[in-house]
Structure formats: structure tokens, C-alpha cells
């Protein structure tokens, strides 16, 4: 260690680690856009051309970017906008309005937000005055006044586009698409969504006004490309201040990627999902284990991180249960086996539990009914069991029908790991019939 420190003349190791953490974290948190979007060059070009035409020629357009979650839809759009803003002709010629279906949950708020972002003249400070109807009329009037050659193009970005389709009458979408198809102020409507069937959500007259351009982001990535991506994501750029450290780090990453066990873990991740957001999650967990004392990522770190990623949340919850609660869960499991998944109530579970106590139990003794009930309610609070839909609240709590929201495999796994679980309880759980 000291030897290394001595060789790193210009940067202490602590400094280097901080730098590494900062650079990679920015990458993994997706705060930093990549220089060029990878694997989606055709889509990038299509979108860039489209928006450039709106900005430069004043041609109205509408387009949807469709792809599964984490496929890089927003990244693509942001890259295009960044590169578009760099162009001389576009720079001050494009107004942007960003809306999100999760924030603007109805047309009223969406309209206010549009008006606010466009700084129309009925905006004072940050507030928009006027009723919904007035705002709509005002915005439409404003857009109508404009024309292709003289007014500034407006780019509308609708994130979570499918949620806008649920607004009443789809008024906003109709009007935006209508403007984009008539000789008014030039606008480009870019919808971002992960639903493949989004067009079916649109009303027919709205659909007719949409240009039917869809940019699909479906990654046909194979595993070698995936591995390569991991490698590029982890390696440090040439601009890293300490060249020596960067070289060593990059060499470490290379050996890491070639490791058999690491490859296996990554393969599993790749099989599960191809999106980069979950990969970033995994790498982030690895990165957080890097410290001055351990300045490289070891295969063990990746295994540990992977274990954390794949950990079963509900099964983990079972570890915190009391023995009584665990016994009730096991009783429920037996009931499910016997009655093939029919719902149960507290009385049935208690009976099953009492049968177990009668027959085999050595370590357990009988509990009072109220204590059992309390345990049962605790299970319900943890949502390990949930009431059957439609069972009315009028039914006494003992007789309310419930269902188990756990899989049997989860119960068995939890039992294996449960600290100091009585053997008879374990055996009871294993036995085919209670």
C-alpha cells in the first residue's frame, strides 16, 4: 500500500478513489448523458432530423418514442435535444415545454404548466391566471396566431404519454395534434411511453391527427455486447488526472470482466433483464464497496451485490416473524395444500395449529385465542395474508376469509434460514400433511 502511495506522486490514493466514485456515480445515476447514444444510432438520426426540421423549416411534426422501461428513451431524447441546442440555427429558435403524465394529471394542470413554460402573457411571475376554459382558449388563440414562417417553433415533450390519453376527452392531445396538422405556429409533439399499444388508447379523431411516426427502442443486444457495455461503464476516461491509477483501475476492470464467476452473475442479470438501469444498480452496489483500503472491484463484490439485487423481499420479511407467527404461516401453507388454494379464516388456521400442538409439539405450548388473533393480525398488517375481495367488514374477524400472498418455496427458504428454528416446527413444515 505504502509502496503504491509512494509511486503516485501527484495524487494521493484517497483523492483518486473520490474521483473514481464521483465519475462512476454520475454515470450510474444517469445524471450524465453519454456522448453518443449507443446501439440506437438510426433512431437518434431519425429524431434529430425530425426536430431539426421543426426548428429550421418550421415543419410541424408529431412522434412517439416507444420502448420498455430502462431502454433509454429519455436518454435518447435528451441527447438529441443537447445536440440540437449546439447547432447555431436552432439555438434560440426552439421553445421547449416539458410535461409529464405523472405530474400533470389532468388537462387543467397541464395547460397551466404549458402556459407557464411558454411565458405567455397571462403569466404573472410563476402563476397562471384565468379559468381552465380561458387558459385553453388563450393557448389555442396564441398558437393559431402564429404561422410557419414567423413564429418560434415549440417542442412539446410529453413524458408518460399514455397517461395523457386518459385525460377527459383527450382534449389536450387533440388540440396539440390538431395544431401540428394545421397551418398554425409550428410545433413538434414528442411523446415518450413504454406502452406498445399506446395508439389504441387514442380516440379515432385524435389518432387520425397523429402522424403515426413511432420510434421503437427495442434493444437486440447480445451478451458479448452487454459485457462490453459493463466494461466501458466501469472503465475510467483518459482524462482522469492520475494516469497511473486510471491504467491500473482499467486493467482491474478488464480482469474482473474476464472472471468466470463474474460472467455467470452478469449472464444471470442479462437473462433477467436487458435494461441498463438494473445493471447500473448492480454496479453501483459494487462501487460503494470500493474504498482506500480496497481500491479495486473484486469478483466477490459483484457476487455480493448480485445476491443483494436478487434477494427476495417478502421472504426476508419472514425472518423477522415470531415463532407463533411462523407456525401460523406454516398452518396456512398446509391448509392451502389441503384445500388447493381456497381462502381460509382464523378459526381454520388456529385449528390446524392446535392439531399440530396435539400431535407432535414438544417445544411449543398452546396460546390463548386472543394471542393467536393478535399474531394473525400482525401477519395481515405485513400483508403476508390479505382479505379476499368482497368479503364484507361485517363478518367477525375470526371468520373473515383470507389468502396467503406467499409462495410455498418462499416459506421453505425462509425456514431454512430462520435462526434457531425448533426442529419439530421445521419437520411439521416439511411433512406433506399436517
Amino acid at each position, binding site marked *: 500500500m505504502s509502496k503504491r502511495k509512494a509511486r503516485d506522486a501527484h495524487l494521493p490514493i484517497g483523492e483518486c478513489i473520490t474521483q473514481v466514485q464521483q465519475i462512476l456515480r454520475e454515470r450510474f445515476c444517469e445524471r450524465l448523458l453519454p456522448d453518443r447514444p449507443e446501439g440506437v444510432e438510426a433512431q437518434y438520426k431519425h429524431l434529430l432530423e425530425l426536430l431539426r426540421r421543426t426548428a429550421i*423549416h418550421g415543419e410541424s411534426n408529431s412522434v412517439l418514442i416507444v420502448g420498455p422501461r430502462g431502454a433509454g428513451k429519455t436518454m435518447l431524447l435528451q441527447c438529441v435535444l443537447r445536440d440540437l441546442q449546439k447547432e447555431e440555427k436552432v439555438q434560440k429558435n426552439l421553445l421547449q415545454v416539458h410535461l409529464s403524465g405523472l405530474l400533470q394529471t389532468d388537462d387543467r394542470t397541464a395547460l397551466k404548466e404549458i402556459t407557464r413554460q411558454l411565458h405567455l402573457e397571462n403569466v404573472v411571475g410563476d402563476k397562471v391566471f384565468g379559468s381552465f*376554459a380561458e387558459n385553453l382558449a388563450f393557448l389555442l388563440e396564441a398558437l393559431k396566431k402564429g404561422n410557419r414562417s414567423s413564429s*418560434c417553433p415549440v417542442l412539446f415533450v410529453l413524458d408518460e404519454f399514455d397517461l395523457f390519453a386518459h385525460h377527459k376527452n383527450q382534449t389536450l392531445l387533440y*388540440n396539440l395534434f390538431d395544431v401540428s396538422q394545421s397551418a398554425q405556429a409550428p410545433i413538434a409533439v414528442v411523446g415518450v411511453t413504454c406502452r*406498445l399499444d399506446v395508439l389504441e388508447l387514442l380516440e379515432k379523431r385524435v389518432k*387520425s*391527427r397523429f402522424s403515426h411516426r413511432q420510434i*421503437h427502442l427495442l434493444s437486440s443486444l447480445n451478451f458479448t455486447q452487454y459485457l462490453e457495455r459493463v466494461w466501458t461503464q466501469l472503465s475510467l476516461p483518459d482524462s482522469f488526472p492520475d494516469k497511473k491509477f486510471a491504467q491500473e483501475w482499467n486493467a482491474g476492470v478488464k480482469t474482473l470482466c474476464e472472471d468466470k464467476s463474474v460472467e455467470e452473475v452478469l449472464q444471470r442479470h442479462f437473462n433477467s433483464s436487458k435494461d441498463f438501469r438494473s445493471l447500473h444498480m448492480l454496479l453501483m452496489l459494487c462501487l460503494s464497496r470500493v474504498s482506500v483500503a480496497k481500491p479495486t472491484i473484486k469478483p466477490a463484490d459483484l457476487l455480493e451485490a448480485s445476491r443483494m439485487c436478487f434477494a*427476495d423481499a417478502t421472504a426476508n420479511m419472514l425472518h423477522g416473524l415470531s415463532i407463533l407467527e411462523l407456525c401460523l404461516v406454516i398452518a396456512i401453507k398446509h391448509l392451502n395444500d389441503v384445500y388447493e388454494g381456497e381462502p381460509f379464516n382464523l378459526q381454520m388456521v388456529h385449528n390446524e395449529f392446535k392439531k399440530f400442538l396435539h400431535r407432535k409439539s414438544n417445544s411449543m405450548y398452546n396460546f390463548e385465542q386472543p394471542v393467536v388473533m393478535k399474531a394473525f393480525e400482525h401477519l395481515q398488517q405485513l400483508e403476508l395474508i390479505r382479505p379476499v375481495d368482497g368479503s364484507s367488514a361485517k363478518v367477525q374477524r375470526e371468520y373473515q376469509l383470507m389468502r396467503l*400472498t406467499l409462495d410455498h418455496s418462499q416459506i421453505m427458504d425462509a425456514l431454512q434460514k430462520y435462526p434457531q428454528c425448533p426442529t419439530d416446527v421445521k419437520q411439521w413444515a416439511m411433512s406433506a400433511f399436517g
Partner: protein
Amino acid sequence: SQRVGEWLRSQHCKMVKDVTLGQHILIEGYDEDNPYVAKVTRLYGDENGQQMKAVVQWFMRVSELPVNKLKLLGREPHPQEIFYYECRNCDNEVNVESILRPVKHLDSNDPFPDSSDKDTLYVKLSWDSKVFGVVNSTVMESPAEPAPASSPPSSTPRGPSRRVLPTPDHAIMQKASLGEVGCSSVGTPANVEAESLHSATKLSASKCLSAKRRNATARTPGVRKRLELSSECSHKDFKMQPLCRTREQQGFLYISNTKSPEVENEKSPMVTETPRSSKRKSAMVVSSRIKKQLNLLENDQDLNSSGEEEDEFVPSKNDLLSSSEEEGQDEDGPNIDDQVSAKKFRYVATGSGNSRSKRKSYSSARTQRRTPAKKISPGTPKTPRHATPSIPIRSLQTQQPANILEEARARLHVSSVPESLPCREQEFQDIYSFVESKIIDNTGGCMYISGVPGTGKTATVHEVIRCLQHAADMDEIPSFHFIEINGMKMTDPHQAYVQILQKLTGQKATPDHAAVLLEKRFSNLAPRKETIVMLVDELDLLWTRKQNVMYNLFDWPTRRHARLVVLTIANTMDLPERIMINRVASRLGLTRMSFQPYSFKQLQEIIMSRLNKLKAFEEDALQLVSRKVAALSGDARRCLDICRRATEICEHSAADPSSTGLVGMSHVMEALNEMFSSAYITAIRCASTQEQLFLRAAIAEFRRLGLEEATFQQVFVQHQALCRIEGLRPIGVSEGLAVCQRLGACRLLLLEPSHLGVLQHIRLNVSQDDIFYALKAD
């Protein structure tokens, strides 16, 4: 008549206020705050003397003028200002009972005083429903005649005569007549002879007018349309630039020079204006000399002047006669002053008229931005803030299309207004004749237009209105007011009232108040109204539980004095039967029209006409697009969008961007694939291994259950089994749920809310065959 007036007054002085001939009075209208203003020209009783009538000359208040026309004034209107209303086809007879009280008024020469006395009104300009003109005192005396009685309309072919019109003497005549009549003082009662003579001429004039109308209608509108659309400008005067022509010019100039359209814009109104002002100057010089020969010349002049000057000012024979009689009584001194000031105003008025025509013809020109965007009439103080709705102006010039493909793309954009609407001639003609007949007969009516989206319903109606507007400008039909509302462009069906009222009068009101005002407006006798043509787009969204909005919309046209034509548009053919209750459907009537989806030939024609001989597409490629779209929906918008996309593909596929060829079959095929193929199969192919396994597990479970639905738990069991078969490590429940959620987010699966966890039910959103196909091809 003075005596008659005295007599009538004595008869009815209890209920009628002091009204003398020539006095300005207020007449009750639908708006209590702003009653109508008029001047009494004649009072008479009917046979038994019970009902007293008054013949009046109407004046317009500022608030009654159409908002968009206020711009023509070129200045802020004074709140107490009124305009002399020259309209040929308005009812100028009122019941004396409706007279509220007399008001003071000042004539054209005085400046606006500062005092805001509510009862004093000022006349400065006249208004003939199109442009402002200078009031001249003769017409103040008796109502203007549309055309002199002596001129037979058939003998002067309208269009050409205007072109070859010997304009100088016309202008001189006008000046002269102005000067002539200026000497008669404004408020004096008309003399009996003039009055009676006038009514005689009026009769014959109205006959002439109706004959003219018949002529106009005899020509079929379809023919007229084609004439207007195809011919360049033969029948249009320099003031009305034909729309199609300017478009063409612009289109042409795109290629040649980017700057020139603007230059053209700036120049053209000037060019049209200069000869006129010079005419006016010469007129000034010689006017006094000519004055004496006036009576000799007037017949000639009247014959010639039935052109566009007519709507600004036409001295009828009768007017001139009466004024020349009065000439002798007044001295010449104030006469010249009068004349000069009138001239000044006239200049202003014609100037603004020009700017209007300029705006109309170059609706896309930049000049529009500089004009004050929206003036809120002083009559409505309810608007607290004067916010102008506008989008910022771009800092850089738009780039013009550089090559053929870009040019084609610009032309194929749905927004570019076509020079004509091909393939809808029959529909055009039906709607045109319907609206035209209603306008000419001064009646109202409803029409229901249906058709699937993208079949040109709204475009056709707009085209009809454009042609009618042009006909109205040419004085072939009476002028009308067009308003448009769209069910989708309002937040609530009741907002329809607000929008209609706002577009009619510029007033702002709450929906309830607006409904009351409109009700009053359409049911009361309001003689000066023009016919209103109302387009109601997306009618089905105006549905309310009680259907009162629709009921009112269809009920107003049936009122006697409403003069309202309602054109409604919706998608479904049987909308009246499906959603309207009987009394609404009955009022809508049976005038219906349905737009059929375009056939492939029509679609092809549409594209061809838009491209307008621009060679950008291969013949086969166009046919493929139109056949494909016609087979699916017949939506012209879709067709144009596909063509546009094909040009892009063509542009990108070419190796060298400068030498792009025609858009061929391959490009069109690619565009079609992009737009019509569903992404499901690609999405399944691109899904991760576990996601694909999960889909297979779902199918396996459905097969086992014989149902199309299963819980996650059941599918998960299958999934784990499949994992083992495939030699993969079985995944945990949490991971399985995550996989399931991802598929659900793309809507490959349909899921219940996720809080149900393993109990949620799963269904497929794609057919099983699609999944098998997608996975097998791997």
C-alpha cells in the same frame, strides 16, 4: 311628413317619447346597456292607426362591430362613437314602442370631446359591414341605395367593367358629390318629395337587386368554384388578391429567392394604392369646376361605378337630386372645409381597407404580427387584463426547401392549405348551395355532416366558406358572418355559448349569461343582423345529459329573426339517432350528408394535386400508398403522412444527399411497414430470456387451465419448471414479479394492480400464435 309626424306624435305621445324626424333615438335591443342607435327618417301608422311604425337609419355601436374588423379602423374607437350603417338588406322598420329615448349626437367634423356624457354619440365614419367609409351627409339623410335604379344590371358585366373603368371621372364624381352634399346640414328633416321619391326608387332598386341575385344563383356554384380556383385573377379586382394566386406566387418564390415574398408583401398594397391617391388629388383640383356639370354626368358615373367602390360609397340618383335641391339654400363657405375633412377621412378609410385586403391575401405574411393583435372593445370592461395571446417570434428566418424532396414534403404536409380540394366536388356543391340559399333567403337552417376522420369534412366546409366569402366580397350574395366552434376545443359543452358570444360580439360572459344573451339575440327582432354561418365541429362532444346545448344550437335557426345557418360535423353517421333525444334530433332536421372514405383513386388524385406536377414519386409507389390506405381507413391524413415519411427514407437511403432520386417502391414499403406493422413481435424477440420464458409459462398455464387467465402464482410454478428444462437457475418470486411487471408495462401482458403480489391475475395482450411465431423464429 312633418305634419304627419306631428300628428302621430300627438296620437302616441303618452307611450312614445319626443321623437321628431331626423332625430337620433335609442331602440331597445338584446343588450340593455347598449341599446341600438338609429335615426328616424319617417314615421307612419298602419291603416287603422293602431300600430305606429318608424323608418330608421341604423347606426352601429363600437361593441356591435365584429371584433376582427375593428382593426380596420386604425385607431382606438371612442366609446361613444357610432358608425353610420350602410347595409342594403336590413330591415329598417321598427315599432315605435321599441324606441327608448332620443339622444344627442355630433357629426363628423367635431373632434371627440373629453366629456363622457353617455347620451352624446359621435358619428365619424360609416360602416358597410366590410370597410369603414366617410359619412357623407346626404346618405345621412336617407338610406343609401345599393345601385342606382336607372342602371340595368345586365347591361354592365360586372368584372371587366371595373377593370376598364375610367376611374378619374369616377373619383371626381365622388368628390363632387361629396362636396355637393356637404352643404346640407346634418340634422335637418328630409323633405317630403325626396322621401316619397326615394321610396319609389327603392322599390325598383330592390327589384333590380333580386334580379341580380337570381342571376348569381343561376350560375352553378360548382362552376363558379372551378372558375375561381383555376383562373388566375381574371374576375378579381386588384384589391382582392385571390388566395390561390398568392399561394402559388409564394410557392414559386420559395425556390427562386427567399427574401422576395416579403418584398412582395410590402409592395403590393402600395402599388394598388398609389393610383387612387393621385386620382384623388386630381379630383380635388377639378372638383369645384365639375360641380356644376354634375347633373349631366351623374348617370354615366353611376353606370360605371357599380364596382368595388360601391361598397364604400355610392351616391344614388335620388340622393344627389335631393342634395342638389338643397344646394341653393346653403352658402359655399363651409362647403369646402367639409369637403377637405371628408377627404382626409376617406383617405384613412381606404388605407385601412387596403391593409385589410393585404392581410387577407397574405395571411401568412409577417406584416400581420405588427398589427395590434387584439383589441378589447371598450364596451366590455369585464376583461381585467389585456393579455395578448401570441407565441414569440423566431429569431432566425425559416429555411426554405432546398431540393425536390423537401419541397414535396412541404407540400404533402397536412397543414399546407391545398389550392383546391379534389374529389369532394359533389359535397362541396351541396354544402355551397345549401348555405348560399339560406344566406340569400335570409333564413336559417341546420345541416349534419358525418364521416370518418380524415375525409375532408372540415376542409370542405372551410372551402365553401372561403368561396362564399369571396362571393360576398364581390357582392354576389349578401355578406355574412362566419364563426366556428369545436367541441374538442372547449373544456365543457356549456363553454360553447361563451365562445359563440365571444366570436359574435367580443363580449365575455359566463356560460349561463352567455346563453341568455344569445337566446335574446336570436329570438328578438334585430334588423341589422347579417346572416350568421356557424360551423360546429365535433358535435358529439357537446352532448350533455339534458342536451340543452345541442337543443339550443338547433333551435335558434328555426327562430324567425335568427338568420342562423348551423353546419355540424361529427364522425358517426347515426349520431342524431343514437345520442339525441327526439326533440333535438327533430330540430336538426334531415339535411344530412356523409363523407365516404376516400377510394384509392381519390387518394392518388389528392397526392397528385398536392404535388402539383412536382416529380418526386414513382407512379407505382403512389398507387401502393393509396391502395394500402384506402384498404385500411381511407384517411387522407394518414396517406399524406406516409408519403412524407417515404420522402425522408428516400433522402436518407441515398448515398449522396445531393443526388436523391425519386421515391420508389422500396421506400414506400419501408414507410408502410414502419407505420402499420405492430411492434409486438419485435418486442417479444428483443425481450430478455426470462421474460420470454415467462410468456411461454403463461401460455402453458393457460393451456393447462383451459382459461385465458391465471394468477401469477400458477404461472410462476410453470416458469420455474421451464427454467429447469432450459437449464437456467430458477429465479425468486421477487425477480419473477419484476419480470412480470416489465411485461405488463409494455402491455404484452395485462395485469391487475401490482399490490396484489402473487395473487394478481395475468392475461395475454398478444395472441398466442404471435408469441410462438416470435419465439420460434429465434
